[in-house]
């Protein structure tokens, strides 16, 4: 067996443990190094398994889809959970606040889509984003008090969705006629609204 034959035979016997392979490897340092290096690659490949973490966006999208499709259903009974008012206290206003936020964005997007007003670009969503930051802090505090295990996840989700809102808002400001950007902005606000909804849903009896 020569070097080329050895290399071809490695497709069949990967580790070079065949009788003829071993004989050649004993006599050939180059082929021996080759086999060692291939084995090194195989060993290192195992470390690529489960090495990466998806962004929170993935779960958010899955949860939104599951709710839309009715696969996630409101649970009939959660005995450990207190009533909505008891559990959320001062944060009860978050649901109407989220609804108002969505409504305001809806009005904003609708107004933006009217052709004569395209040239004038009011920054309606900027104060909303600021207001929503305040809401975020309150929501995080509530989650920290009532479901501490979920706090990190919520904080990260909110950070990502606020980032998306800022990005999309920036593009809409630059290109008022960009329908895709406007849709992205609306989607981002919807995701934020969904986050609020999910938080409240978990707290409901």
């Amino acid at each position, binding site marked *: 067996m020569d*070097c*080329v034959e050895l*290399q*071809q035979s*490695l*497709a*069949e016997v*990967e580790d070079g443990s065949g009788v003829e392979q071993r004989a050649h490897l004993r006599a050939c340092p*180059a*082929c021996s*190094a*080759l086999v060692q*290096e*291939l084995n*090194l*690659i*195989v060993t*290192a*490949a*195992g*470390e*690529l*398994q*489960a*090495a*990466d*973490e*998806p*962004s929170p*966006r*993935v*779960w958010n*999208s*899955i*949860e939104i*889809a*599951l*709710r839309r*499709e*009715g*696969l*996630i*259903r409101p*649970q009939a009974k959660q005995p450990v959970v207190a009533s909505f008012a008891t559990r959320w206290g001062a944060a009860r206003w978050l649901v109407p606040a989220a609804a108002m936020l969505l409504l305001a964005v809806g009005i904003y997007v609708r107004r933006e889509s009217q052709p004569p007003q395209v040239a004038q670009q009011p920054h309606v969503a900027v104060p909303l984003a600021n207001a929503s930051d305040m809401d975020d802090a309150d929501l995080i505090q509530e989650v920290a008090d009532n479901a501490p295990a979920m706090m990190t996840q919520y904080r990260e989700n909110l950070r990502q969705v606020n980032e998306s809102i800022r990005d999309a808002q920036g593009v809409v400001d630059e290109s008022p006629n960009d329908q895709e950007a406007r849709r992205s902005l609306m989607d981002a606000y919807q995701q934020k609204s969904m986050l609020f909804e*999910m938080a409240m*849903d*978990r707290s409901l009896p």
Partner: protein
Amino acid sequence: MRPGKGDLTEPRQQQGTESSEAELIERAKLGDAEAFQALYDKHKRRVYSLCLRMTANTAEAEDLAQEAFLQLYRKIATFRGESAFSTWLHRLSVNVVLMHLRKKSLPVVSLEETTQGADEDSPKRDFGADDVALAGSIDRMQLQRAVNDLPPGYRTIFVLHDVEGYEHNEIAKIAGCSIGNSKSQLHKARMKLRDLLKMNRAEKAGKSRVG
């Protein structure tokens, strides 16, 4: 076979989780949001890593991981527990990715069938001559980048076999190729990776000499 093939459970969660997973599955069947999320948290890294490795694209990998979980959750009511949940999810994820690659007209495997041939990846006489040796260990990030640079056909077989631990006969069924083709592709993928890793090391060595 590499341990853990088809088992998507996070390594630290592998022991003593069978009953809790069965419980989560039953709760998910009833539409429990937390159960869905707990199952996702348990398996997300393996599913996402598989998708990322096979597509070499973060956005595509996220979309495919999402699609795999959604398909699974839509069918979860039919899960009877004959096979491991993770095996089911793993196979489904592979199918989602392969379907995606086919839709993009990317080759799942190369068309050539044997280890013989005169193409650019055929065995060369000058291998390992005087180039940089891959001594010691291979950095995970370097290997990851090299895998991303593999042609899609090679990448699929390498990921399924060397990363995910599938056997050649299983890969042949999944990817729709012959066992010989799977073996040939794997060998060429490893050789290509070796070249890529060596090039990378040589570039680094060159830079450090210049610097």
